[in-house]
């Protein structure tokens, strides 16, 4: 008997806002515990929430990127449960009228593209972080109240690979839209995995198991793979599956039962009376729509056409919005004739530095202006290629403009024929053996002389011109 897998994901994404969801506290990561707190996010008596407008905007932008319908009238609800990570002992979330409905993501599978539908996207506040210290535990409320957007997929995923592809696609779109850093190490993107199996041919979905709070893609893949094997084993060995919530233990490499359906929480949702409904006008939604960036796939195609670069290059560049933005800015500064050269420089030299240093383009000191100037200097033969490549790491690390560096250090290419002639004669005079070799037919010996002249010019000679001069001198 063959079993089919059904996976649905509930993905919590931390939004890139300056302040918390319902108060003005900072969201800076890595601060001393309980320093970014106030009466509101500590749930003090009398404190009231006020919805963060930026978080609403970022959720709507996400919804628009993912093709959702934006709910023009959405509301907040209280989700009641007692736990020390929730200061008020209820979480403000959206239950009945979330901000975004529908939409989806297209992923690539071995059988071609597949559409993964989204049920809805809602906005809520994150819980605080609990740290355990042997005999006692501490609560750090710095994270409490962080804006979280929850993207709930339909159960359209049929393998752990598809789940990975979905999450990668989601991450790329969200980072692209600037709504989240999706930094997994900082817990920016966490998923609950709903997973079931059923015999091939059966319509009805099997018993669902939810694996809670997974924060790495690797973990989600491993947990889903484990769960499919476990459920298949149970079903084929006559063991009944129960609807339950499980947790992934990465050390034991297995999922473990947390609670069954009978012990599920009754969250007693009801409309949050402290917050008025979020009313969005068509004008507002349209204004936000104008701020949307191009999706990576559309950008790849456009960049191929606009800059005449190969599909592979366009794909690599479009993959990360910051790289694509940097490339396009540099290309525009250099002009149409140099598009291909800019693409080569970025794809080879800049990408190499990025991978060597582990930095992002936003973190290094290089600017489109400095890279464009460097490329133009090389193209205009003001400096030669090797000099340009030597200058790049410095611009990358320390910044500055290449023209000023070239002038200050006298790195300009020597193109003065008479000065180079002298070097050529000097090289020929001191290497009679190589001259003989050349005359004996070893034309490659010319390269040796070019190298000698470059050396004598301290690397500043125009290599093309030197080649011509050497050839002419040797033929005489």
């Amino acid at each position, binding site marked *: 008997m063959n079993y089919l897998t059904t996976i649905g994901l509930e993905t919590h994404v931390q939004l890139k806002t300056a302040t918390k969801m319902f108060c003005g506290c900072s969201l800076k990561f890595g601060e001393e515990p309980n320093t970014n707190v106030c009466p509101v996010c500590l749930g003090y008596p009398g404190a009231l929430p006020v919805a963060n407008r930026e978080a609403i905007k970022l959720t709507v932008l996400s919804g628009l990127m993912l093709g959702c319908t934006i709910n023009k009238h959405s509301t907040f609800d209280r989700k009641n449960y007692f736990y*020390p990570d929730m200061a*008020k002992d209820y979480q403000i979330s959206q239950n009945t009228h979330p901000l975004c409905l529908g939409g989806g993501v297209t992923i690539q599978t071995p059988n071609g593209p597949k559409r993964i539908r989204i049920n809805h996207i809602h906005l809520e506040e994150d819980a605080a972080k609990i740290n355990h210290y042997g005999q006692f535990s501490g609560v750090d409320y710095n994270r409490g109240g962080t804006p979280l957007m929850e993207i709930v997929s339909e159960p359209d995923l049929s393998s752990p690979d598809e789940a990975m592809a979905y999450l990668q696609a989601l991450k790329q779109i969200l980072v692209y839209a600037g709504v989240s850093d999706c930094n997994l190490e900082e817990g920016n993107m966490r998923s609950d995995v709903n997973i079931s199996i059923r015999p091939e041919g059966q319509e009805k979905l099997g018993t669902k198991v939810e694996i809670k709070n997974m924060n790495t893609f690797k973990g989600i893949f491993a947990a889903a793979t484990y769960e499919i094997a476990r459920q298949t084993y149970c079903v084929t060995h006559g063991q009944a599956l129960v609807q339950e919530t499980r947790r992934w233990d990465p050390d034991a490499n297995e999922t473990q039962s947390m609670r069954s359906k009978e012990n599920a929480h009754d969250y007693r949702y009801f409309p949050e009376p402290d*917050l008025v409904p979020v009313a969005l006008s068509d004008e507002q939604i349209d204004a936000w729509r104008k701020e949307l960036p191009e999706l990576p796939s559309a950008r790849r195609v456009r960049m191929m056409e606009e800059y005449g670069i190969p599909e592979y290059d366009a794909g690599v560049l479009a993959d990360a919005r910051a790289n694509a933005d940097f490339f396009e800015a540099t290309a525009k500064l250099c002009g149409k004739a140099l598009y291909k050269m800019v693409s080569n420089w970025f794809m080879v030299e800049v990408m190499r530095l990025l991978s060597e240093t582990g930095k992002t383009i936003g973190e290094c000191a290089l600017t489109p202006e400095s890279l464009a100037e460097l490329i133009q200097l090389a193209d205009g033969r003001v400096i030669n290629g090797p000099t340009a490549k030597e200058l790049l790491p410095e611009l990358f690390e320390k910044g500055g403009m290449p023209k000023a560096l070239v002038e200050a250090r006298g790195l300009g290419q020597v193109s003065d024929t008479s000065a180079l002639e002298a070097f050529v004669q000097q090289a020929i005079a001191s290497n009679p053996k190589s001259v003989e070799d050349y005359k004996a037919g070893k034309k490659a010996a010319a390269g040796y002389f070019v190298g000698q002249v470059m050396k004598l010019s301290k690397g500043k000679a125009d290599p093309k011109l030197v080649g011509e001069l050497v050839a002419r001198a040797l033929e005489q």
Partner: protein
Amino acid sequence: MTSETLTLSTAVAGLRTRAFSSVELTQSVLKAIDEKDGQINAFLTVDAEGALKQAAAADAARAAGADGDLLGIPIAIKDIINVEGQPCTCASKMLEGYVSPYDATVTARLRKAGAVFAGRTNMDEFAMGSSTENSAFKPTCNPHDLSRIPGGSSGGSAAAVAAGTALAALGTDTGGSIRQPASFCGCVGLKPSYGRVSRYGVTAYASSLDQVGPMTKTVEDAAILLQALAGADPLDGTTARIEVPDYRAALAGGLKGVRIGLPKEYFIEGTDPEVMTHIRQAIDSCAKAGAEIVEVSLPHTEYAIAVYYIIATAEASANLARFDGVRYGHRTVSPESVFDLYAKSRAEGFGTEVKRRIILGTYVLSSGYYDAYYGRAQKVRTLIRQDFAKAFTQCDVLMTPVAPTVAYKRGEATNDPLKMYLGDIFTVPANLGGLCGLSVPCGMTHDRLPVGLQILGPAFGETMLLRVGAAYERLKV
């Protein structure tokens, strides 16, 4: 000078003419508390040192040319409103020893206006109750008859104003908690429209019903205090972005041409006949002064109490969840687990009535019951609102009794919660409808107990409410 005979407006007049200073006025209030409050128990804490410091600062400001209707005026504050550095017990053991780290918006506004925070008044625990007997610390006595309750939940504020130990006070009203004690103690109490006054920093009982309002000796004083409290607050998204009118300017309007509606559902059997006599007399005198009397109907009135006790308790069950012993307030000794910490801290910290309402609220929201209780209550609430909207097309204000009785004996209703709930019948609908309501004294019974006349206006109709209240007040003199 004795503060006991002063109103808020005569006190500020005295400060302006330099007849006395704020320090002298505050000392007089403190002296009155000292002499009388041992019997009345209106105050939970008195901050004499802090109050005199604020008074001295107000005097200095006035000497430097500053002025304002509340500059140097001592005001008593219900112990549910946060004042930075002061306790805010909500008359609960749960918050015994808690010191507030921040000012409520109403506190901040009064502070900016130069008011003096003399003391914190007693109340029913977490504003749940109608007699101030649910205070975890002590019951407050009615100054008119010490064996009787002052009403509640703002019973301490009402008793202090009535006893002359406060010139004016702040109360909160979720289902009648300003108007009913004002009626029982013979003072003026104003519940503003929902959204008129910020709730930020006011410990929540039922978020969609709570409002802060003034409790004063005269309608004019209520107008002065409301002027300082009202207005949109960026910290409370439920406050209305509606301009605040000049309330005192409305006081002289008179009754001529005002249409007073009498909802027939409020003039029924079961109300104390003596109370009804005084209400009828008040209405007659308004009619003689030129008001037009119309009968109106609010057909869903009979459901108001049920709807109120579903919605209020549901909201309260969530609002009071935060009192869990984790961050502040009462924490049980040596809990065995997190669950044990919650269960014991809450069992020890909350009183019976609070527990009763948390359990009720938890029940009506629980899975399978939501639609039958909370969902249905919200629908009926809409019908009640529509009743009022329709009534206010036929009249400018409504006049009714505040409560079916006068102040009753201590202990008389404590064993019968339902009886006490039914005492809220005339006040609760205004909260459900988001309306504004005023309680004005309208006479004394043979037992020398005050009766209160309730004037209800549409949402943000405080101007008309105060105009009618002030006009009626002038008729009595």
